[in-house]
């Protein structure tokens, strides 16, 4: 087994002979043979691969769970912010005529078994943006006269539904006169 070159070192020839004689001794063969060793190698490799697969599967499961849970939680959160709690507004209509008119308008939307004297449940939602902006423009242009009339009791005169036209409602009030803040006052007017 031992090669004869001495890598640049000078060794006594007698010691070289001894080394050669020792080299002729064959070390004992290990108990396992080649096939047994290869079998053990394969088994160790398989065990390692199985551990790796298990680890990868666990990681993938956790990732998928997170990927599914986060969007669902976000959706639920957004939905609760948008819808809020449903509000109930009830009150007598101002007169029978108006009530019947409103019922005829909303009748198509009511479920078939709904009673007419039941309070209408309104889901509070923002009015259509176009109406709000149009109303705002009108208020800016014409003053507060453009606002719809409020009921004297503070209660709505009828149940409002999303999409009701709040702008073109007829008003029976006299047009609002702007107080004159500047300019000449008439002699009889109190200042």
């Amino acid at each position, binding site marked *: *087994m*031992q*090669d004869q*070159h*001495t*890598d640049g*070192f000078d*060794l*006594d020839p*007698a*010691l070289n002979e*001894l*080394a050669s*004689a*020792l*080299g*002729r*001794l*064959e*070390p*004992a*063969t*290990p*108990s*396992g043979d*080649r096939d047994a*060793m*290869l079998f*053990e*190698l394969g088994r*160790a*490799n398989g065990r*390692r*691969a199985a551990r790796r697969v298990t680890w990868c599967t666990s990681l993938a499961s956790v990732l998928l769970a997170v990927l599914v849970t986060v969007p669902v939680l976000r959706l639920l959160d957004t939905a609760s912010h948008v819808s809020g709690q449903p509000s109930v507004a009830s009150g007598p209509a101002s007169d029978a005529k108006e009530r019947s008119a409103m019922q005829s308008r909303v009748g198509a939307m009511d479920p078939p078994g709904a009673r007419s004297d039941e309070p209408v449940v309104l889901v509070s939602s923002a009015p259509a943006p176009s109406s709000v902006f149009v109303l705002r423009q009108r208020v800016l242009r014409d003053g507060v006269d453009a606002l719809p009339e409020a009921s004297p009791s503070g209660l709505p005169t009828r149940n409002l539904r999303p999409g009701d036209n709040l702008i073109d409602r007829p008003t029976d009030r006299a047009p609002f006169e702007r107080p004159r803040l500047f300019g000449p006052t008439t002699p009889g007017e109190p200042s």
Partner: protein
Amino acid sequence: MTWIDPTKLGDWYEAFSPSLSLYARQWVDAVAADDVVQDAFVQLMRQRSEPVHVKAWLFRVVRNGAISRTRSRRRRRRYELAVGQAGAAPFESRPDDLIDARLAASLLGELDGEQREAIVLRVWGGLSFDDVAATMGVSKATAFRRYEAGLNALRKRLETSCKTNTPTDSTSTRR
């Protein structure tokens, strides 16, 4: 996934495992030495690429594995002293051997651990002095000195052994 051809692994095992096992037996017993050698081949199989010098790499791994198995210095020392005297014979006895296998094992066991390591690596491992030095973690000159000193010690012991045996032989011849 194996990057090294299993056929190559098998060939290496057949070629190097006896000397690797003999090397590991400096620190652990015969059974543990076989385990250490097998572990070294498992580690070799896990390498992504073949080491540049496979034999030297295997001897280093076997050394580390065997030393880590001893766990304590005292246990290591006990194994160093007991090597060649206990367990299965480290050499296979053949009729054409110039030196008796059991005598050689016994004399090796009496050597200093570092000298014995250098001799095993060089004689049965077939490593160059560069690789012997790298495996032992010493300089090339130190590795050579240990090898030379070990061989000198072996020669002296062999001479002593022959002188001790000669009178017996001569006595028996006279009879």
